[in-house]
């Protein structure tokens, strides 16, 4: 999409219509409110008001004990102190989330970058590109919960992976690794699933970025005798930086919301010993199991704050293309 088109079209209209029949334009423009009304009405009712009430609950003692509900009673910042002080400290779940995100994201960005460079390289001219793109993007569409269930089944103590390992002689028969009893393995498996689900998507995004780079720059580098490596580090990477940052931040925002995969994989327990419990899993726990709405509220505020800062960066990058408006 070219910048020119974006900036030209909206400016054209007031000039053309405005001078001829001014009052009529004004009449038309009021219609805009009718067109955007459903969006704002629904957004306010189902997102904005719930957001405010969620934050509100964060300042109240409000939870279920047995069959009784305690509260709501205003307690100030006590819930915040509680989620940081309790033996299940929120920082731990945040760290779990970031670790599992990084395990998936680091290989993801490296592999995607490599594939994007290959796919767009005019020298290599790889064939069957559509096939490979289709295949590597596919896991992204798979239901995350079913994908996690599939991994759980494949890696279970008597599942096919353990059987293959034993048959290959890497472990004695009847002595499975028991992947889900090790924090490291479980986290790696979550990372692998996230990697598989997202590297195709990232590849396509980066490809779009590379194709946006003026091809003559690559030609010039080649004529000047730059090796593929030099071209990559001196031309591709610097020019790709904005989209690179964009991919990273949006991935991090997605990573903070990680839920389906570890939830299904560990039946919501974050086993072993809550090392794979993500921040949203904990929130879900407060909402559905311990029913501590006060803590759920204060936790939501914190998640909102973290993602808010990151979203601010995305917003800035997105608005940059509408600057001239």
């Amino acid at each position, binding site marked *: *999409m070219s910048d020119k088109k974006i900036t030209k*079209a909206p400016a054209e209209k007031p000039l*053309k219509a405005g001078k001829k029949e001014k009052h009529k*334009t004004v009449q*038309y*423009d009021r219609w*805009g*409110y*009718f*067109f955007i009304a*459903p*969006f704002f009405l*629904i957004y306010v009712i189902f*997102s904005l008001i*719930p957001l*405010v*009430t*969620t934050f*509100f*609950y964060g300042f109240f003692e409000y939870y279920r004990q047995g069959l009784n509900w305690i509260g709501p009673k205003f307690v100030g910042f006590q819930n915040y102190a509680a989620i940081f002080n309790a033996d299940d400290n929120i920082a731990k779940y945040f760290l779990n989330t970031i670790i599992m995100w990084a395990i998936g994201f680091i290989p993801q960005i490296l*592999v995607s970058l490599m*594939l994007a460079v290959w796919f767009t390289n005019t020298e*290599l001219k790889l064939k069957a590109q*559509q096939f490979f*793109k*289709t295949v*590597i993007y596919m896991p992204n569409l*798979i*239901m995350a*919960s*079913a994908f996690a269930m*599939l991994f759980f*089944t*494949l890696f*279970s103590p008597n599942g*096919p992976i353990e059987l293959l390992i034993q*048959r290959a002689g890497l472990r004695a028969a009847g002595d499975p690794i028991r992947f889900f009893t090790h924090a490291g393995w479980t986290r790696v498996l979550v990372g692998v699933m996230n990697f*598989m689900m997202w590297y195709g998507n990232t590849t*396509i*995004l980066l490809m779009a*970025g590379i194709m946006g780079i003026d091809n003559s720059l690559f030609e010039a580098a080649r004529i000047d005798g730059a090796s*593929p490596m030099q071209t990559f580090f001196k031309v591709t990477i610097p020019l790709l930086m*904005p*989209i690179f940052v*964009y991919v990273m931040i949006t991935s991090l925002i997605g990573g903070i*919301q990680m*839920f*389906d995969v570890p939830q*299904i994989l560990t*039946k919501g327990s974050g086993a072993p010993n809550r090392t794979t419990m993500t921040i*949203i899993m904990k*929130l*879900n726990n407060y909402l*559905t199991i311990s029913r501590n*709405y006060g803590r*759920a509220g204060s936790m939501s505020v914190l998640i909102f704050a973290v*993602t808010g800062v990151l*979203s601010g960066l995305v*917003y800035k990058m*997105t608005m940059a293309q509408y600057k001239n408006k």
Partner: protein
Amino acid sequence: MDEIKYASQSKTLIVRRFFCYLVLTLLAIISLFPFYILIINSTHSHMEIQTGFNALPGKSVGINFLQLVRTQEWRGPNGEVIKAFGKNYPIVRGLINSLFVSTLCALVTTYFSAMTSYGLYMYNFKLKKAAFRFILAVMMVPTQVSTLGFYQLLRKMNLMNNYLALIVPAIAAPAVFFYMYQAMEATLPYSIVEASRVDGCNEFRTFNVVVLPMMKPAIAVQAIFSFVSSWNNYFIPSLILEKDHWTVPLVVAAARSADYMSFNMAIIYILLTVAIIPLLIAYMFLSKSIIAGVTAGGVKE
């Protein structure tokens, strides 16, 4: 001299190309392997799966499928009782429910997003800029942070265990709006709308009859994406839907909660196959436009 250099260059190119294909093939295998095992194992019986890994399909797919979908146990040819899992894991019902919810979500989200973006693209009103900025600012806010309030709201509105709670909020989808807005900038000329006005169409008629058909490609892409994300959605449905309203991810989650060690593995595999395969088949047909859609969404500069 030049020839030698050229020859060696093309030789390294061949080596590089070979390496690329090798890595790509490897990645393709990694991406496909879990689904291969899934499909193969869903054709074997529980006993066969337990005793070893099979590379070739078995013969039990029919009985597995029957066990999965039937709700009452029945007797086999030799008089043995065959268990049925349809009652505990209502996957057929789940597929119908998922199809219903996802289709409506896709329709609602694309229609109203197109409407919103048309309103902000075509008209110049006072709050236009503020509205546009607001939508972009909330685009990345995770739904989970307002879940508690959403949940309480649904209880007050008596919308618990009701599909409306999933469908109506789909009207306000900031990311879909943004995509539509960009598509309008690229494809919708003002002159067409003006021509329609001259012909005496009112504004809503213009939108429905003239603008929507022109936006078909963008609507198709977003309809696919919102269908998929609603089909796969687990977090919100798990909070609000009861068993009689379960969608596919909830049926899958129920299978995870079962006592795993004593479970019939063949049923797990056939269940996952039934949950995953419909979307994969659809993907085979739509992959081109899906990948084009991701590309268009990614172009920022």
